């Protein structure tokens, strides 16, 4: 067993520097690497390029890095729900690259799987395709999209073992698996870190080969953005 376990978040983020490109998993606030984000805030590194589907809310998730003016550029598909983001974007402090969600996922997966680029129909004929190579296949037009290049990728899983194997829960899976192995160093934080052999190899979502460092996460807040419920039906 090749042991990927590191003692804590401080050790897990060793080597992260200003000016780097970072991938961060999560959809909205669901499945975000809360511990890694807190440590990035503490480190105070700046001029970060973040590849993340969303940009958090004002006081949580990537919003914490925005408040601190640590992010130079955001690459996302949807960035609503964040006033500070809007302010920085409109004032020109923050550079924003909007990418169709499926393209964003695939650009991560392509990096993971060794594809330099791929053709997708998404965005053809729109401003997203401006300046990009296009090509026709079977009468339909496609846009060439390159794979991302990142220095670190920060993902969050439900369970993991010391070998770096990961299991995700519910829709907290989202972009996390696509970002594993898509950067030079992948750091996984988990709700439950177990000894190798504890997880059933049949149930592993991401094999440890895609993960360089794994650590036991702490104090997950798991904030809900839109709490939608229905009243309990009372019987009798």
């Amino acid at each position: 067993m090749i042991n990927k376990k590191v003692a804590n978040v401080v050790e897990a983020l060793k080597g992260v520097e200003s000016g780097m490109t970072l991938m961060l998993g999560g959809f909205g606030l669901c499945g975000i690497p809360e511990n890694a984000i807190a440590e990035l805030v503490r480190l105070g590194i700046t001029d970060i390029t973040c590849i993340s589907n969303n940009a958090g809310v004002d006081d949580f998730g990537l919003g914490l890095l925005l408040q601190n003016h640590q992010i130079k550029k955001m690459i996302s598909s949807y960035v609503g729900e964040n006033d500070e983001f809007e302010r920085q974007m409109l004032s020109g402090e923050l550079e924003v690259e909007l990418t169709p969600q499926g393209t964003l996922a695939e650009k991560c997966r392509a990096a993971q799987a060794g594809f330099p680029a791929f053709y997708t129909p998404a965005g053809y004929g729109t401003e997203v395709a401006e300046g990009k190579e296009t090509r026709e296949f079977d009468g339909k037009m496609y846009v060439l999209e390159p794979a991302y290049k990142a220095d670190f990728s920060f993902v969050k899983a439900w369970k993991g073992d010391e070998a770096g194997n990961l299991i995700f829960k519910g829709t907290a899976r989202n972009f996390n698996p696509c970002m594993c192995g898509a950067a030079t160093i992948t750091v996984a934080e988990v709700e439950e870190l177990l000894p190798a052999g504890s997880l059933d190899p049949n149930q592993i979502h991401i094999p440890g080969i895609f993960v360089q460092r794994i650590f036991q996460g702490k104090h997950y807040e798991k904030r809900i953005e839109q709490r939608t419920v229905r009243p309990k039906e009372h019987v009798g």
Partner: protein
Amino acid sequence: MLDKNGIAKRIAKEVKDGYYVNLGIGIPTLVANFVRNDIEVEFQSENGVLGMGPFPFEGEEDADTINAGKQTITTLPGASFFDSAVSFGMIRGKHVDLTILGAMEVAENGDIANWKIPGRMVKGMGGAMDLVASAENIIVAMMHTNKAGQSKLLKRCTLPLTGVGCVKKIVTNMAVLEVKHHTFHLLERAPGVSVADIKKATEGKLVVEGNIPEMVV
């Protein structure tokens, strides 16, 4: 004239037994409430779930189980979770049978604009560009005119596009229309709405053939 629920109710009739359906935010979300319960349909949410159920009971919400609108949801028997690349693989690979989404503008050539208004804060396209570029069966749910009373069914979209030549069917508060041969073809009228009303509210080329029936909602 239909209200938002009326539009959703009419669109629900387009949902067939055995369909995998992706619902956008807004009116499309309401469609789930009106789908016949004697057919088997699975709802996909692009953040990574198939087999979405209703909202959870109070106290049973789970931060790890949400839809693409970031709302807490439940799953039904047979549901599955998957990552974002697989999710859009389902969409791009045309495995999802029907996509229902909203629009700010639709043009007679099938172009759609629904993500950006110049001069206003841009929130992003989310999964809309992937959905419209890939799905073969797209229904647009929208009001026929904007708040200023101007037509949203145009000769050419004026707003930045989400996709080109992709819309096949539109259900508005006034009518059901099909987009083909670079024209809007009127299929049904909403209750109490005349063909003349629809003509007046449609800027793009409208084809009216024969007697146009009133919608059954």
